[in-house]
């Protein structure tokens, strides 16, 4: 008997979004989104301002102020809507924030120790020993090209735009999600920072790990090649395609796509 309403998928979809309606403060933003993400796939979600792109990321990760008014959200067959944000993280979902939050007084080391050990606890594993944790921290910092001096810095405090985004990718590397959602990771970055962040993401690509890349611009997609491109407009996915769709948008904008 399946009391949780979970079901085994008859395909390999990692994330399945069916007719999702969601909004904030009574205003409907997502008006029936359908999206399926398979294992190891990279999906770009593009769209103009106000289309609902960031709302999609917030709803998948369980942000409390966004209410879901209809539809289904399944991750590895589990009903995501019944799970707290931390449970979604333990299940393997990671959101790279568009505007990463500053946490004065809490070092990156202590922050990540709390996160990594919480995930291990949820999986029935003991805390990492301090030495093991530091080794992992250094290894992942090196992977995303982050200076190890950042380990002692307060989370995002005094970081440049590029450093904040790189810290997001570092956290993603530490938590090793199966689905990474990048919410406008390219916004506010110069070309060099963009390339560094993209290199970090590419280093994490694997057949077992999928990505949703939320972006306005095609630029980031030159560095992180998506398998699929979706156009989100006025709360609905209005077009699906391959990488060529991103290029067409770059040429002609979103206006002609309905």
């Amino acid at each position, binding site marked *: 008997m399946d009391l949780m309403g979970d079901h085994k998928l008859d395909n390999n979809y990692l994330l399945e979004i069916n007719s999702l309606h969601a909004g904030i403060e009574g205003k409907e933003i997502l008006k029936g989104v359908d999206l399926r993400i398979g294992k190891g796939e990279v999906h770009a979600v593009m769209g103009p301002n106000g289309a609902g792109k960031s709302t999609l990321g917030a709803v998948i990760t*369980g942000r409390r*102020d966004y209410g879901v008014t209809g539809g289904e959200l399944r991750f590895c067959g589990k009903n995501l809507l019944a799970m707290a944000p931390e449970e979604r*993280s333990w299940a393997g979902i990671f959101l790279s924030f568009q505007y990463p939050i500053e*946490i004065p*007084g*809490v070092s990156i080391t202590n922050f990540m120790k709390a996160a990594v050990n919480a995930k291990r606890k*949820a999986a029935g594993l003991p805390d990492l020993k301090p030495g093991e944790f530091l080794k992992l921290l250094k290894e992942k910092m090196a992977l995303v090209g982050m200076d190890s001096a950042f380990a002692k810095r307060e989370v995002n405090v005094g970081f440049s735009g590029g450093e904040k985004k790189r810290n997001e990718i570092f956290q993603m590397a530490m938590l090793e999600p199966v689905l990474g959602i990048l919410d406008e990771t390219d916004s506010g970055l110069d070309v060099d920072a963009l390339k560094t962040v993209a290199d970090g993401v590419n280093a994490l690509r694997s057949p077992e790990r999928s990505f949703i890349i939320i972006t306005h611009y095609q630029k980031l997609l030159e560095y992180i090649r998506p398998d699929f491109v979706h156009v989100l407009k006025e709360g609905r996915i209005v077009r699906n395609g391959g990488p060529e769709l991103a290029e067409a948008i770059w040429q002609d904008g979103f206006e002609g796509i309905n």
Partner: protein
Amino acid sequence: MDNCTMDNELQTDNELQMNRVFLIGRDEIPRKVRLDSGDTLSWTLVFLPCAGADVKVDLDVNLCGPGSSLDLAGIYICPTDEKLSLNIKVKHSAEDCSSSQLFKGLAGGCSRAVFDGLILVEHGAQRTKAVQESHSILLSERAVAEVHPQLEIYADDVECSHGATTGFLNEEEEFYMRSRGIPEAEAKRLQTISFLAPVLARLPENLRNEIISKC
């Protein structure tokens, strides 16, 4: 802490320690302090949880000597039913003095924390710089944190400001932490430590750890 009431006497200037951490309810805090020319006083007042406590702290600092400065900070943790009243008066009587005050606290349960802060800049105390900030986080709907800042300025070449906030923990911060897998309770604890951090940084490590363990 077995005695949470306080009724201390005025302390004379030459007994003053310029750098000190006071545990409210345990250490005697001078009621009146006078700073002479060039003096720099850096004090941190700490109030730790003490169920049933009803404590009032009155502190008057008078910057009498030109160029004297005050750096005062405070932290209070009132998780249950504590009552804490801080009445801080900073008087600038001479030129070129500066004062900075930063108070941070947590009020939970049905506790009540009241901060009355007066900055008085007297006529002739030109080029005064005075800042006063008081921020409180409410951990329950029944807790009360009141801030009454007051500025009285009788000189015209001064830079004075005050800021006061009372609110709940920030939900966006909490979501950021939980989205990294940090459970709700631990996220709130980290947020609390983060909020208190600027004052915690002034304390010796053992006291800092004691406070963190109570968050």
